[in-house]
C-alpha cells in the first residue's frame, strides 16, 4: 500500500469509528425504554444429550448424510475401504484420480493399478481429474457433515474440483453436534476450514433441485470402524 493509500485508509477507518460511536451515543437515551419491551437474551432450553456410543454416532451420521443425497458406507477396516475405493473408480470409469496429502488416503490408493493417482495436483490437472479422494478431520453426526482443516490436510481443491468426491474417515472423529466441532476446531484454528454436507446443489431455476452445479455431483463417504 502506498503512503497516501494508507493514510486514506486510516482516515476512512477513523471516520467510520467516529460515526459508530456518535450514533451509539445518540441512541443511548432511547435504549433503556426500548429494552423494557424488547429484552433479548433468554437462556437456551436445549435438551442435554447423553453421550452417544461410536456406533450410534456412525449411524446418525450415515442417516443424516443420506438424507441429503450423500452415499455412506461403513467398513470394518482399511482393507475393505480400499476395495470400496476400487469399486467407485470402476463404476465411474475414472482414469485420473486426485488425492490429498492425507496419509490414510495415500495408503489406500497406493496399490491402485492402471490409474493415474496424482497427489498435490496443480489447478490445470485437477480440472481433468474424474475423482478426488480426501480424508476429513472431523464429522458432525446431526447434520451428516464432513469437516476438513487445511493445516491437517491439503483438501480445498481435491474435494471440490473433480466431479466425484470420495472421503475416507475414521469412526472416532465423528461427534454429534456442531457446537462440539466448533469447540474442537477452535483450539488450533486452521487457515481454512471447510464444512461439506452432501453434493453441490442449486435450486436457482424455478426452485427445482439440480445436483453438481459447480462442485462434485456425487459424494461418497467411507467410515472405517476399525473395531
Amino acid at each position: 500500500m502506498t503512503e497516501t493509500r494508507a493514510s486514506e485508509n486510516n482516515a476512512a477507518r477513523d471516520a467510520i469509528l467516529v460515526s459508530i460511536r456518535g450514533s451509539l451515543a445518540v441512541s443511548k437515551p432511547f435504549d433503556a425504554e426500548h429494552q423494557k419491551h424488547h429484552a433479548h437474551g433468554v437462556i437456551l432450553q436445549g435438551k442435554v444429550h447423553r453421550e452417544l456410543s461410536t456406533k450410534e454416532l456412525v449411524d446418525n451420521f450415515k442417516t443424516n448424510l443420506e438424507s441429503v443425497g450423500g452415499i455412506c458406507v461403513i467398513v470394518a477396516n482399511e482393507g475393505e475401504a480400499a476395495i470400496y475405493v476400487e469399486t467407485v473408480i470402476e463404476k465411474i470409469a475414472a482414469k485420473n484420480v486426485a488425492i490429498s496429502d492425507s496419509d490414510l488416503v495415500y495408503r489406500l490408493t497406493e496399490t491402485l493399478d492402471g490409474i493415474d493417482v496424482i497427489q498435490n495436483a496443480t489447478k490445470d490437472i485437477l480440472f481433468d481429474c474424474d475423482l478426488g479422494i480426501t480424508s476429513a478431520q472431523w464429522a458432525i453426526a446431526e447434520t451428516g457433515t464432513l469437516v476438513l482443516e487445511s493445516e491437517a490436510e491439503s483438501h480445498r481443491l481435491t474435494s471440490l474440483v473433480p466431479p466425484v468426491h470420495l472421503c475416507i474417515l475414521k469412526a472416532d472423529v465423528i461427534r454429534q453436534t456442531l457446537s462440539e466441532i466448533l469447540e474442537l476446531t477452535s483450539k488450533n484454528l486452521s487457515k481454512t476450514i471447510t464444512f461439506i454436507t452432501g453434493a453441490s446443489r442449486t435450486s436457482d431455476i424455478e426452485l427445482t433441485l439440480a445436483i453438481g452445479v459447480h462442485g462434485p455431483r456425487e459424494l461418497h463417504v467411507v467410515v472405517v470402524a476399525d473395531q
Partner: protein
Amino acid sequence: MQHLTAETFDQNARDALGDLVLHGALRNLADNFGERRKVAMASVDDWEGLREKARAVKEETLLHLDKYLLQFVDNAEKAGAKFHWARDAKEACRIVVDLVNERGAKMVVKSKSMATEEIHLNDALEADGIEPIETDLGEWIIQLAGETPSHIVVPAIHKTKGQIADLFVEKIGIEKTNDVDVLTKTARRILRERFAKAEVGISGVNFGVAETGTILILENEGNVRMTTSLPRTHIAVMGIEKIIPRFADLDVFLKLLPRSGTGQRLTAYQSLITGVKKNSDNEGPDEVHIVLMDNGRSRMLSHPVTRQSLACIRCGACLNACPVYQQIGGHAYGSVYPGPIGAVITPQLIGISKSKQLPYASSLCGACREVCPVKIDIPELLLHLRAEITDGIAGGAKRNPQRKKKFSESLAFKLYGYAWSSQFSYGLGIKAARVMQKLIVRDGKIGKASGFMAKLLPPLGAWTAWRDAPVVAAKSFREEWRTNLKSE
C-alpha cells in the same frame, strides 16, 4: 434494460400485479420455502430460544460495534489478511477496482454477494474495463439477462424455466431445452473455464468472527469455494454489521440461517477463512483482502428501533412469508434489498426522500416478524419510518418544521376519539354513519369514491380507489340479539 426505482413503487407494484408470467414464476415460493422451513425448524430442540440467543448476540455486538470491529481487524491482520475501510459505496468500489487493476486482471470471478450488489460493483468494474463474471447460477442468469436480483437468496426467482432456456439459446447458443439439469450443466461447463483463468475472486461474507478474525461464507453450489480458493487474490466485501463476537457464536447462526433461508439443516458448504495461507506452496490464494463497508450502516445505530436493521442475516425468510412480496416479486421494490427487510433497509440506505412509498409497502400483518430468525420487529420499523416521513420525529431527528397538522385531520381524529370514548357516543356515531352512508352506497357496497366525495373525505377516496369499503349493517349484532336472536 431500464431498472425500476423505489420512487415509483406504487406504479411498479401495480404493473407487477398484472404480470402473469411473474406470478407463474413466484407460485412455488411460499409453499416450497415456507414448508421446508417449518420442517427444518422442527429439527432443533428450542427454535424460540435460538432466535432469542441470536438476537442477544447481535444486540451485544452492535452496542459495542467499534470494539468488536477493531478486534476482528486486529486478529485477521495477524493472520495475514489486509483491510480496507470504505465509508460509502463509491469508496468501496474504488478500493476493489484499484486492487484488481494493480494485479493486472481484466476479468474477475464473483460469488453471490448482496454487499457488492448494494454498491453496484459490477458497473464500477466494467467502467474500468474489467469483466466481472457472476458464478452463482441465479446471479449468472440475471447477469446474462442484464437484470438485477429479485430475491436475496434466489436471485432469478422471477424467471421461468422457459425464459431461462430462451436466454441460454440467445446468449450461449445452445439448443433449446427445458431440462434444468442440462441448463445447470451448461453453466458448469462455461463457468469452469472462467474459474480456471481468473486471477482475482470476489466474494461476500456472512459472518466475521471478532475473536479469531475468521470470515465465514455459506453456499450450496461450490462457486464460493472456487472463487475463494482458485484465484491468486481473494477480495471479500462485507458490511460492518456482519461481526459476531465469538467463534462459538457461529453455532446459533449456522442453525438459524440455513433453516430460515432454504429450509436446510446446513447448506452444502461452509468456508471458514482466517487470513492467508502460511506457506506460499500451500493451496489457496496468496492474498486475502477484506473491504469493510459502512455505506449508511453506522447511522442506523442511532436509535434502538433502526438498529435492529443491522441484526439482519440476509436469509430471505421475510420475503418468502410476505403476502406483498408473494404477489409483486422483488423488482417492484426498485431497490437492491426487496421484500419487508428491503422496505426498511432501503429508506435508511438511500434516504427516505427517494423511497417514501416503501415503508407503506406492507399491510403490517406481521408475517415477517414471525419468521425472522433474529427477531427483527419489521412492522415496528415500518411504523417508525412512516412516522419519520410524516412527522420527522423519530430516530433523534429534529421535528420537521414544515409539517403542520391540517385542521381537517385534527378534527377527524377528535371526532373519532369522541365516538370511541363511550358506548353512547359510539352508538350515536354508528347511527349517523348509517344515515350518511346512504349518499355513497351503491348495490349494497361502497365502491370507488370519486369527485366530490373523494375530496370531502380523502381517506375514503384513497381506500376505495382499489377496493370496496365495508358498509355499516342495518342493525348491529347487539340490536339483532335484543330483538330476534335472544327469543330463539
